[in-house]
């Protein structure tokens, strides 16, 4: 679908900050507040805006023990449905965070979240690799997140270094 410049601008702003006040957003893109509400509603209805999410640095939470693995999956595509069917079979599992079809050495990139390494290992050996079309899997555990979706988790020296008044 084709979006106007203004709609694109609105999307870019709420992608960075979905909690922004519509009144402020309206000022920023030079629109009426009602126009913003209508546009956002429309984009939600069209499923362009899919969900409002929060980026959380779980590593800072002591009681959190989850871990994430990225799994490269090679599959045999099926006549008529290509990769879609197997992708669907994979993304239906609750453990699966995301599934991407990739170019390059493997076909699907699957991100899996679990409570322990055992849990993830079990998912891979029992559920994922046993699927008919899956040829092979390579599992990579994420050790530390530095930057996620454009956001640096622990920015260093972020304070304003400018002098307070200048010409």
């Amino acid at each position, binding site marked *: 679908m084709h979006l106007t410049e203004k709609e694109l*601008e609105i999307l870019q*702003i709420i992608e960075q900050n979905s909690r*922004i006040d519509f009144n*402020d957003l309206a*000022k*920023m*893109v*030079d629109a009426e507040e009602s126009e913003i509400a209508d546009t956002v509603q429309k984009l939600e209805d069209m499923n362009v805006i899919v969900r409002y999410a929060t980026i959380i640095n779980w590593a800072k939470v002591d009681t959190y023990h989850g871990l994430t693995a990225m799994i490269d999956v090679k599959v045999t595509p099926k006549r008529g449905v290509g990769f879609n069917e197997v992708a669907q079979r994979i993304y239906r599992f609750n453990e699966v965070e995301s599934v991407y079809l990739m170019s390059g050495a493997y076909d699907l990139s699957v991100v899996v979240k679990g409570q322990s390494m055992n849990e993830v290992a079990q998912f891979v050996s029992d559920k994922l690799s046993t699927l008919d079309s899956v040829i092979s899997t390579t599992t990579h555990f994420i050790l530390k997140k530095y930057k996620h979706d454009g956001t640096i988790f622990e920015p260093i020296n972020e304070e*304003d270094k*400018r*002098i*307070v*008044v*200048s*010409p």
Partner: protein
Amino acid sequence: MIQTSFVSKTIADLKPSGIRRFFDLAVNMEGVVSLGVGEPDFVTSWNVREAAILSLEEGRTSYTANAGLIELRQEIASYMKKRFAVSYQPDSQIIVTVGGSQAIDIALRAILNPGEEVLVVEPCFVAYSPLVTLAGGVAKTIQTVRENEFKLTAAELEEAITPNTKAIIMCSPNNPTGTQLRKEELIEIAKVIQKHNLVVISDEIYAELAYDDDFTSVAAIDGMMDRTILINGFSKGFAMTGWRLGFVCAPKDITEAMLKIHQYTMMCASTVAQYAALEALRNGMNDVEEMRKSYRQRRNYIVKSFNEIGLDCHIPGGAFYAFPSIERTGLSSQEFAEKLLFEEKVAVVPGNVFGESGEGHIRCSYASSLEQLQEAIKRMSRFVEKYK
């Protein structure tokens, strides 16, 4: 005993910048939200910083040619051509300088004979008049008016010209008003400039930060190339203020004259900064575009908010300053800025430091995060309510 000073009379008589005073007031205060900063809030892009680091690793620590690295001048030439439709020869018409300020300095010194007049269009950047004085000229100000969004008109210019007028310094988009002259307006001004055979020093440092109309360079106006000294640089558009890197483009004879001064006083601009600028021009235009978009949103936000809280503000076409009127409060710009700082801890710059026509206004830089701007508006709203 007679008191004597070793300091020259010219310098002793030079008025200190009014901005300095506000810096001193604000610098040690806790919890200040500053709209007083005349530079981008972006840190220079990583690829540019990385290129500078690489140049140091490779040991590029010697002087460059006086006029700057030839590769950089070539990039500048093609950038100016592509972006602003002006053609300059890299080897004879471009000098890489230590910021735009040094470029203005050598431009003035290259053209002025003692006592010649230079027209300075106010409100404007605080350095123009002092630089004219230091170059041995006489600064004559033209006061633009708010009713006309501080745009210089051909009539105002015509009236200010005397037989002794040599040049005019103008800046669009402007610091502090944010006003940008449109092409038609420039054409009218250019006619007067040509009629009286003046030189223009056109400070185009904010050229990349034009939000509504395409930016037109003075040099791109018919017949102006031969009498324009074009100042530009990396500070504002590329968020590189601290690198101190600008450039000046001019007709050959003037460039040669400026280069004489430059080679004796500066030798060349910082080498590491020149390598950084090379990367900025080669791979930095997407970042410039992103920053421009972000400033534009913040401009829209702050101008609408000012008008809502009772500070009348024209829509500034470029740069990152809003210049609202504070008339309704009945305070002078100095009083307003001082009280606002002490009572609400918001730093702004009083308009009168940019020239007498700036009185009744304050300069508010919106190169700050949206959160900071929101907080500033909240505090200023409270303040204006109290005084109106």
